[in-house]
Structures are given as C-alpha cells and as structure tokens.
C-alpha cells in the first residue's frame, strides 16, 4: 500500500436556510450539494474534473429526495463526467465530517488522488427521523433508550451534568451574537457560495416565477434576548430546560471540500488550505449522546500526538446548549476559542451537512487567525462523538 499526503484545496458551503419554512424549503439536497460541488471546483480552476475519482457525501436521512445514492446524483447534477463515482455515507450529525475523513483516507492510502467530499441535508423535505421511522423490535423491547429522541438526550445531559436553564439560554444568546457579528464583519464571505434558485410558485392564484438568491445564513437573530429565551417553554420533557431557543435550528444546507494528493497538488500547482491530521469516533450511552465529544476528542488528540493546549480554534457543533456546555466543562475547553463565529443554535444544523459546514468554517477562520491546529467535533445521534484535527497550511 502506498502512503501519501492529502491536502485540502477548496472548502465551501451554502448559506444555511431555516427548515421547513426558509428560502430553500423546496430545494432538494442533491441540487444543494451539486451547487456546493460546482462552487468548490470553481475555486480550483486549474484542477481537471476528469481527474476526480469519487464524490462522497454525508447525509443523515438518505431517503426520498436525498435517497438513490445522493453522492452519485450530486456528481451527475454537478456536471462531472460519468467516470466520476459517487457514494453516500451516514453517521448522522457527523456525516459530512465522516465523508471528508473517508476521502482523506482514500488519498492517504493511495487508492485515489482527487476526492470531493461534503454533506447535504434538506430538513424541510425530509424530517428528523425520516418519513417512516421503523425501529428494531428487539432493541425497542430490550433497550428502547437507543431510540431516545435527541431532545430527551439533551434533557438527560442537562440533568446529569447540572447545566442550568439560565446557562443554556445565555449560551444560546451568545451563539446568536457571535453569528451576527461574524456575518456583519463578512467573516463567512470566503466560505459562502451563492445560491440562485428559480422556482415557479402558486402566488395570488396563479403560477409565478420566483427567483431566490441566498448568500447569508437565515438563522441568526438580532432580536433575541435573555428575556425572550427565558419565556420559551421546554418542549421535550414536562418541566425540563431544553427549549426551541437553546437547541440547534432545523435547517437546509450543503458544503463541499476538495482533497488532492501531493502529486496532483504539484501537477496542477494548487495552493493547499490545510490538511486533516486525524479523525476519531467513539461511542457513549445513547441516552446521553450529547456528551460524545468527551470520548472522541481525547481519542483524536492522542492519535495525532497533540494536546488541547496545541489547539487554537474549535468548532463544537451546538446540537443543544446543554450538551455543548457539558462538553466544554468536562473537557475544560477554552470558551474564547470555541465557536467564535457562532454555532448551530444560531446558524442552524442541517444534520448530514454540518460536519462539512464546520470544516469550511474552521479552515477559513484558522487561516484568518493564523492558527496552526484546529479541532472540529460533534455529538452524534445513537450515542457517539466524532472529532477531527486540521492543520492550517496557509500560515
């Protein structure tokens, strides 16, 4: 087996739209993904698309519009030649990151030279849990906690790690404030691509052409406050603390990253953004899945031989404020470098896309800050954590 280095040469994302009533509510995730792939390729014009080996996309509920092997459909919709293969991977909320890790492995092991990886999810079209959740009868009979709802796991984590409602709401407010500040300062400009959607909608009693241009995340709110957040009811448990305001938003979005081997990088004279140094997943009890990063982060740090002190920037997916705070406290993370541009509570969490979205956000912010090592991590439904360490090569 030949071992070689893999480099990230392009990493982009669409704006994240609200589901199920946002501007992208009718846009299929295959088209969203194809838009991201096309934009990622545009940023490396010297790369010959005929050299792409495979398109690997993450998706948490790969069914209906995002079924039929999303990865291959995206490759076709992005206008790539038939020779480019496609695959879909699912690790729920870490699917996008998992796709990038797989692409990286394919290059490192010498199986491939050019890979496109990413994630896409339309929660407007395919709801959380899918259209038809059919749990395993034996597990339901013996250990139903495997099918614990995500909101309930957040309640369990809040209870177990004593995360107060006030702390959760304050965390949520800060996510919005940071996302608004980042948007206003244009800090997402390098990673964001433009969505141009043409639709024919039934308006005022007749079909009418509607053109939608989306280049800004829909989720962040300038009008929220601690008072407003404190008024929201707990939705998952009677008397609980997890609300719509301190949970991630349901969203639509896609992101794509291009990875190449050292040989191809030199051949096409490409400029590397960074590289994936290591990736790890770990299991935790399903009913407290939010704590997943606590298991995965030490594993990946050990793998790459770094410590938390070496990490200059962290993207910790905000599935819920409760689990984010539990992870921050348990791992002893420096809050000043966690989600500096806001997280999923403000920006939204298009499940299978998120891992690829935070990769793009992390790489561009590392470049801006001149940080060498960055960490992307998230909890995963069913009781898992995933974590990846990236190295900035633009220093």
């Amino acid at each position, binding site marked *: 087996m030949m071992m070689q280095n893999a480099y990230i040469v392009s990493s982009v994302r669409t704006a994240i739209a609200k589901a199920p009533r946002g501007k992208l509510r009718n846009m299929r995730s295959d088209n969203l993904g194809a838009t991201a792939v096309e934009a990622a390729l545009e940023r490396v014009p010297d790369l010959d698309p005929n050299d792409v080996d495979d398109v690997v996309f993450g998706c948490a509920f790969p069914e209906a519009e995002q079924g039929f092997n999303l990865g291959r459909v995206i490759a076709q919709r992005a206008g790539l030649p038939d020779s480019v293969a496609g695959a879909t991977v699912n690790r729920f909320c870490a699917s996008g990151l998992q796709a990038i890790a797989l692409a990286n492995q394919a290059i490192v092991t010498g199986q491939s030279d050019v890979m496109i990886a990413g994630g896409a999810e339309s929660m407007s079209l395919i709801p959380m849990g899918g259209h038809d959740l059919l749990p395993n*009868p034996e597990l339901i009979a013996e250990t139903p906690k495997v099918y614990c709802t995500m909101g*309930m796991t957040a309640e369990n984590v809040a209870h177990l790690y004593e995360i107060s409602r006030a702390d959760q709401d304050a965390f949520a407010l800060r996510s919005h404030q940071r996302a608004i500040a980042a948007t206003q300062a244009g800090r997402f400009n390098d990673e964001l691509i433009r969505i141009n959607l043409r639709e024919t909608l039934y308006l005022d009693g007749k079909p009418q052409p509607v053109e939608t241009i989306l280049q800004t995340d829909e989720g962040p709110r300038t009008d929220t406050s601690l008072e407003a957040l404190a008024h929201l009811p707990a939705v998952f448990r009677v008397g*609980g603390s997890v609300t719509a305001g301190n949970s991630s938003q349901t969203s639509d979005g896609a992101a794509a990253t291009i990875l190449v081997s050292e040989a191809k990088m030199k051949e096409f004279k490409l400029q590397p953004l960074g590289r994936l140094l290591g990736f790890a997943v770990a299991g935790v009890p399903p009913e407290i899945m939010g704590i997943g990063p606590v298991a995965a982060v030490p594993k990946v740090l050990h793998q790459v031989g770094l410590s938390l002190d070496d990490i200059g920037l962290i993207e910790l997916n905000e599935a819920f404020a409760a689990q984010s705070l539990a992870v921050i406290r348990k791992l002893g993370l420096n809050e000043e470098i966690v989600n500096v541009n806001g997280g999923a509570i403000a920006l939204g969490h298009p499940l299978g896309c998120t891992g690829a979205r935070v990769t793009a956000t992390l790489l561009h912010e590392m470049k801006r800050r001149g940080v060498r090592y960055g960490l992307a991590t998230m909890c995963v439904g069913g009781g898992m954590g995933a974590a990846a360490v990236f190295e900035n090569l633009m220093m």
Partner: protein
Amino acid sequence: MLKPFRTVAVLGAGVMGSQIAAHLANAGLTVHLLDVAATTGRKNDLVETAFKKALKLSPPIFFTEKTARRVILGNFDEYFDRLSGVDWVIEAVVENLQIKQQLMQRLEAIIQPETIVSTNTSGLPIHLVAQGRSDSFRQRFLGTHFFNPPRYLKLLELIPTQDTDPNVLHRMKWFGELYLGKGVVIAKDTPNFIANRIGMFVTLLGIKAWTEQGYSIEEVDTLTGTLIGRPKSATFRTVDLVGLDTLMYVADHLYQAAPEDEHRDVFRVPDVLRKMVATGTLGAKSGQGFYKKQKSQILSVNPKTFAYEPAQPLNLEEIKQFETLPLRHRIQSLYQVPGRAGDFFRQTTLAMLNYSAHRIPEIADNPQDIDRAMRWGFGWDIGPFELWDALGFETVLADMKAANMTVPEWVQKPFYETTPATSKQPIWQNSEAALLDMGDGVLLYEFRSKGNTLSNKVLEGFASVLEILATRDYKGLVIGNDSAHFSGGANLAEMAMMAQTGNFDAIATLIVEFQSLLQRIRYFPKPIVAAIQGRVLGGGCELVMACPQVVAAAETYIGLVEVGVGLIPGAGGIMRMVSRASERAATDSTSHIQPFLRMAFETIATAKVSTSAYEAKELGFLPCDTRILMSGERRLEIAKAEALHLDQIGYVPPPKNDSIMVLGGPGRAVLEQIAYVFQQGGFASEYDRYLATRLAYVMTGGELSAPALVSEDYLLQLERESFLPLLSQSKTQDRIVHMLKTKKPLRN
C-alpha cells in the same frame, strides 16, 4: 324556491366577526373576512393578526383545522371588490353608527342587486344603520344578531326593519335554522332586542340583591345557577366572563335607549360596579372581577372595601332539602319555601316575569319567542313563561297583584297548553331502554339509562330489538335518543362491581356478548343507523363504529377514552380502527399503512375525543359517508330517512373484512417507541405507557413477527385477551374508582 347562500362576507375581524366567519365556514360556505387596512406594514396585517387570535380561542371555533382555509382574509382598501361576488354580507365592525353607515354606503355601490346585507350590532337601532340607502338596499337589509360564541350558542335573533322584505326574512330564517343549525327568533328593532334585554334585567336584579339587600355574591350565584335551571356561571361569574365594562356599557345604553321602560331604574348601574370599572377591575380579561382566583382559592370582592375575601358560608340552609329534586319540583319548592332563599327567588322571579309580560308586543310577538331566546341565548333550561306556567299560572298572577304589580291585559291564560303525554306506547321496553315505532316501518331504539350508558339492561334490550327487527315487517332501525349526549359508554359502576367481587367470568361473558352483539348489528340484514350528537364515549363509540351508517350532529364529541379508566377498547373499537387504517392506506405496503395506524394509536392512547363530527371523520371514528347535520335536532328524522333510503336501494350489509393488514412486531416497535418517548418526556405515566403497549400489541396483531392479513374475529379475540387482565390490575381499579367518584380521569 329558497336559495341557500354559498359565498358570504363578514366585515370586521374582531371577536364576533372572526367567530361568525368561522361558523359560516363550518357550515361549508366560502367566507371572505375583511377588516380595515393596516396603516403601517402590509395592509392585511390587521385582519391576519385578528384572525390568528381567534384561531387560538377555546373551545375551538372551527370544526377542523382545515376548515379555517375556507376563510379568505382581506382588507377594505385592496379587496373591497370581492364583495361584488357574495350572496350575503354580515357587518360586524366597531359599534359606531357613523362608521357603519359609511360602510353601508360603500357597500351599496359594489354589491349585486340580490345580495343580502345584515348587521350584527347588539346595541344600535338596526334601521339607522341602513339610513340613507336606497329602497332596494333597505329591503334586503336586516339585523342578524349572533350570540358569543356563535358556534356553540344556538340563538340567532333576526331583526327586520319596517323596510325588510318578508321574503328576505323568511329566507334568512330558513337558512339560519337548516344550514347554520341556529335557533332563530324574530325580534323587534328595540334596544338590545330580546335575549339581552331580559338577560340584562335579570342580571342587574341579581347584582342589586348583593348591593342593596345583603345577599353575598356566592349566595346570588347559588340562587341563580343550576339550582333554577340556569348555567353554572349564574350571575356574577357570567359578568366576570363577559366583562364588567361591557355590562356597564350595555346597562347605561339601555337606560338611555328605553325611556318608556317602566322598570328603567333597574338598568341604573350600581355605584359599586361603576367604581370597579373605573379602577380597571373588568373581570376575567383583567385577572379579577367579582371573583378572583388566588392559587386554588376563589375569593370574592367586598362591596365596601373592594378587598377580595374568602367566601362566607352560605346562609341558605333551606335549599338543601330540594337540591336533588327534578328541576320543576325544585323551582316549585323554592318558590314556596320561607326564608332568604325563597324570598330572593320569589322577588326576582315575579319581577322578571312581570317585566317579560310587559315586553310583549314591544320586543317580541309572543311569549314563546322570549322563552326560546332565553333558552338558546342564555342557556336557561326553561324560559320565563315556561317558568310562570310551572309555578302555577294563577298563583303567579295572584302574587303579582298582591305585590301591586300591573299585569298586561293579554295575560289571560297559561302560556302553553298542557298536552297529556300522547307519546305512543313503546313496542318493547324495560326500565332502561325502549323500542319505538318512528312510522313508515322504521324502529327507534332509545337508551334511557343514566348518562345513556350501555348498561346490562340496555344490552339485554338489543337482543329483543334485533329479534323484532328480524322477524317483523320493519324496514330498518335507528339507534338514538333525544338527549344532549348520545352515550357515556359502558356502565362503569356495573363493571367495577363485578371486578371487585372477583366475578371475572361474568365480565368475560359480557365482553364476548357485547362484541358479538356489535358484530351482529354491523352485519344485520336490515339497515341499522346510529343517530348521534354530543358525547359518544368508550363503548358508545364502539357501538357507533359498528353501525353501518351514521347520522351525526356536527357537534359530536366522540372518542375511545378507555385508557382514562385504565382499560383499552374491548368491543371492536381497536379492530375497527385498524381495519380503517388499512382501508385508508394507498396500498398494502407497511409504510403506507403506518401513518394511519400511528394516528389511530395516538388517538386511542391519549383518549382523544373529537371536537366535531368532521374531526371524528378525520380521526377515523366515523366513516367517510357519515351524514353530518348542522342542525343536530334533525338527526332522528334524517336517520329514519337514511334507513328508508338504504332499504329502498336494496340493502346489503357491508362485507366482513377478514383481510385486515396488521403489521406485526416491526409495526409494534414503532408504536412502542412513541409510547416510550411520551413517557420519557413526562407526557404519559409509566402506567399510561404500559396501557399503550397493550394497545400496540392488539393493533399490530399480537405475537406476529411479520405483517399479515388477519380476520376481524382474530383481532376481537386479541382485544378480549388484553382487556380482561387489565381489570385485575390495581392501577386500573384505582382509575375506575376515581372516575366513578370524581368523574375525572386519574393519572397514576
């Protein structure tokens, strides 16, 4: 030939306007709801906000959520031209004569020459609203006074002006009764029309007994509530709900508008009330009125200090002796009994009866209309003149004379003819049920048990009834009754008795018999039609689900509520819901059946009761060909017609469904996961979840590990096997005992 309205418009999206629009949409009409344009933002903002607020009202104003889509929102600026396409316009804007008159002027310019226009004003003179309009407009103009909430209160007062074309009035009455299910009373164009005029008088008498005669708020409410056949909210609680400011406004208005009224002084607002309004004490909308709820305690206001105090013990000992008597005996006794309670009742009743007598012909043409208005608009069990007759026509007359009251000349004899009970002899009867001949070869089986429960006697009766139907020359059977509520379900007390004495064999036999009775009803060779309204619960629901044809009042509240008493349906209710789920699915594919099964599961597991017959269809309790009537009192007559119709076309009972798709273990896991999530979230107790898993077991075919087509009998057997063991569970027994004692479900 009378033509029903199809498209209507309501002007003004306030509390009344929105609710009237909702009720017209309930009746199947297309409704335009318009209000003034917002001055900032989008012009429709105002109407949309008002409508959204109305959508949150409880009880719900629409029959189903989707009904609301039939209301098209608009504003006077942009969409006034829509009014050119409607059959009837109802004006319900702010109570300001000038604004209403201007609106009428604008309206006249745009509506079609046959469009009818009405105003819902409750205070302004009707004829003034149309003043200045053409003859043709005024001929098509009248007052249509709905009562709040218009979906639930039966009264509709129609107020013609001198100019109103009698044909228009006739058409409106016909439409109101048949299509809107209203009780229509024709009123005169006098201040506050009929019901509010009398109602205000009676309310103020009650308030003045408090301010002037030393009766406490609680005493007045005791003496003016259910005791005398009036709503539980009686006097003060009703004013709290209506608003003290509204009451004051109407009373002040009446005092001004009725200078000829010989009892005008009654409408003079007591200072106490005026002061309360001045300090913002307006009733429920301001958090406190005559009453104030503090934690679990209900306090009432002290008229001198305006402080809220706990209720003093009632000084009305004498009413205890007849509280449990039937209404007529109760009021007769109250009228005779010496002491404070009797004094209050005699005094206020004589004043009210005398006042009502003097209002004819001023506000109504006959005493019956006043009685109807008070029954339908104020929820009284008997109207003023019915009360007069009940107390003894001559007795009341003599008492009025003794009290120096003048009695109008037209009062000469009792207001109602006492007809001897001419009801025909039942064909068959026992102490709790009867079989009657409806004529034309149709039978009526009527429950007469307490709460119309399916007691042993009622169930036994079915055997005789079906025997008569089978062997004699009858064409069909209607199952129904005159009561407000069709049936409260199984007789819990009888079942609890058997369970407590350990007589489970008897219960097992009962369940088998009940199941086979319902199967017999469904597959009987002659048509059997259920005629239902109001509450139809538990076993009552299962009976209706078994009937091949149903005629339902729109106001039907039906549900399988067994889990509330720790049970699951055991008489075919589950089997039929599963059968309907697979019938409604597009194919036999499990993923097509699953959503319907899931809905049925959640409906039964949460003891959901429909809020209307239309919703009951959506939930799967009623078949899609159920005849739904806005005017529920016609249900027996229509059910009879339905039975005759089925007979005429050559009746064939529905085929037995012995290929019901059940989903087995994989499908059961889906339902068990839902129960798990409900319980984890604290939305269901551990025992609720246990009951839900038993329900899921039956719904998915028991032990099957894969989907299968099964027979009705197979599912009925599963129902029985799952039902009986629950009765010996202590938590189920606790639930039953609690329900029998408190009439409320226990969440253990």
